[in-house]
């Protein structure tokens, strides 16, 4: 495992006329990690990816990949696999011809093609069909195989699970976890928070072109206030809840939201003394944090 960041962006900005799509982003994607790059549509995710891939020139700032500047992109590119956001594949080619075509620019055989095709349920008869006969899901699977077949060190995926059915999404998550376990890096853009929370170990959130958060997911979760919905066996007078010293918001005589900051261990003994019937987490802390940002543009009380 290398300690050099797989992707390092410094003060990266992109302007289109007077509109600033990406503002002074400082992004660091550690090697051997799965980095979820989260943001709503139009937040600047794809523009960032295009600058990382040398497809668009930054108005300001620099990008380095594996510690090497963008001028050396040609030498690094064979170590990269990419699934772009909305790409139109060559419809006159078969799936296999498409894979062969993109592989032909690289040295060596497509080491993982067979394994990927099996995992993503692309049979050999599917691969011999013309791409024009493919469904959107099949095209996405073909793009994924194309990106990963040469076993790259860095995978850059722009909303890769779009158009995949839930079973194939699970397979994709397993493949990405396997990539990471072998010391590879995955940079993954999405607007689907549960997906990012499920498979990524690092997260960056972009809003209106600004990187508002960048951290390890576990560290971020610990910093965030959490809410647990508590149901009691009997009606609880407000005074009794206050006496507990815990931060409750009463929803009904038998139900309240408990807001926790810091360690859960401090709260748990006091909570156990209460007549609990049920505990539920209506929203993950990350989700409520993300939604707060998108609704109000505030940090949602992050510690």
């Amino acid at each position, binding site marked *: 495992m290398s300690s050099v960041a797989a992707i390092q962006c410094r003060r990266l900005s992109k302007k289109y006329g007077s509109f600033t799509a990406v503002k002074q982003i400082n992004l660091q994607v550690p090697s051997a990690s799965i980095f979820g790059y989260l943001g709503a549509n139009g937040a600047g995710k794809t523009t960032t990816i*295009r600058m990382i*891939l*040398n*497809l*668009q*020139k930054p108005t300001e700032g620099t990008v380095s990949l594996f510690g090497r500047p963008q001028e050396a*992109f*040609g030498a690094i*590119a064979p170590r*990269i696999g*990419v699934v*772009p*956001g*909305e*790409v*139109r*594949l*060559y419809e*006159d080619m078969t799936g296999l011809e498409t894979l062969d*075509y*993109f592989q*032909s*620019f*690289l040295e060596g055989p497509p080491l993982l093609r067979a394994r990927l095709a099996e995992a993503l349920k692309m049979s050999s008869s599917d691969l011999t069909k013309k791409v024009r006969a493919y469904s959107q899901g099949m095209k996405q699977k073909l793009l994924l195989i*194309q990106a990963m077949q040469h076993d790259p060190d860095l995978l850059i995926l722009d909303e890769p699970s779009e158009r995949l059915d839930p079973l194939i999404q699970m397979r994709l998550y397993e493949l990405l976890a396997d990539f990471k376990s072998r010391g590879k890096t995955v940079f993954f853009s999405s607007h689907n928070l549960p997906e990012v929370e499920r498979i990524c170990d690092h997260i960056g959130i972009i809003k209106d072109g600004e990187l508002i958060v960048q951290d390890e997911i576990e560290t971020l979760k610990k910093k965030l206030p959490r809410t647990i919905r508590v149901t009691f066996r009997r009606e609880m007078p407000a005074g009794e809840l206050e006496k507990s010293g815990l931060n409750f918001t009463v929803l009904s005589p038998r139900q309240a939201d408990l807001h926790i900051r810091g360690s859960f261990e401090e709260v748990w003994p006091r909570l156990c003394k209460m007549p609990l019937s049920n505990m539920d987490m209506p929203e993950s802390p990350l989700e409520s944090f993300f939604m707060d940002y998108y609704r109000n543009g505030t940090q949602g009380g992050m510690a």
Partner: protein
Amino acid sequence: MISHQQFKRIFKSQRYVLPLLMLLAFAWQMLYVVILSSSAMRKLAEAYFAIMPPAFKKFMSIMGSGFSGEQFLAFGYTHPSMLFILSFVPVAIAGRFITAEMEGRSIELLAIRLFPRSRLVMTTWLYTFVAHALLFSAMMGGTLAGQAATALSDGLPAALIVKIILSGLLFFTAINSMITFAATLFDNRGKAMAWGIGFLLIAFIFDALVKVWEQAAFLKNYSLFHWYQPVDIVNGKYDYGVAIAVLALLTLFFLGAAVVHFSRRDM
């Protein structure tokens, strides 16, 4: 400078279209010889030439009052239908293999595999050059095969045909560079093709005007199509030195501009 993978892909995608166009070009040039070789059709052509308005004759670069088989055959190389085929090749190829790559975002897959990025431009340009060379060869083949089959006495000598097709190849190489440059400017294939076709149409109409309209004759050196005149080559009125210099300059300038612009532009 060239990507053999991309070249193979373009060639494969055009494996039916290009032979069809070559067959058409071959047949077209052969047809001109057949018309000349048939006495009835020749008489009809001669009668048509005799009553043709002088402006038309000027447009076709026909010299002298009589009918010349060489001029007639040379005109086949510059007939609007042949010009259309030869012009449409760069417009269609550059539109599909440069602009459409950007429009469909497949450039994002190609640009991380093709280094430098300009190889895409050079490969597309080279394919069109090869296609033009093959089309001109087919046209020459049509004339020669027709002349051999009909034993035409006043046909085009092989040396003149070679001069015609070399000047044509140089001319359409310049067009190829211009259209390739136009293709790198746009993200929309339809727009790129419309601009390409529009530019060629205007250039063609401008050439017709400066030929037909005496007051505008002084502009003829500024007309693009003035530099492709097979009938002038037959008449010995083609200025090879200037033509080669102008067309080579246009080719280098626009190809260079396409390479530089495509390498620097945002994808």
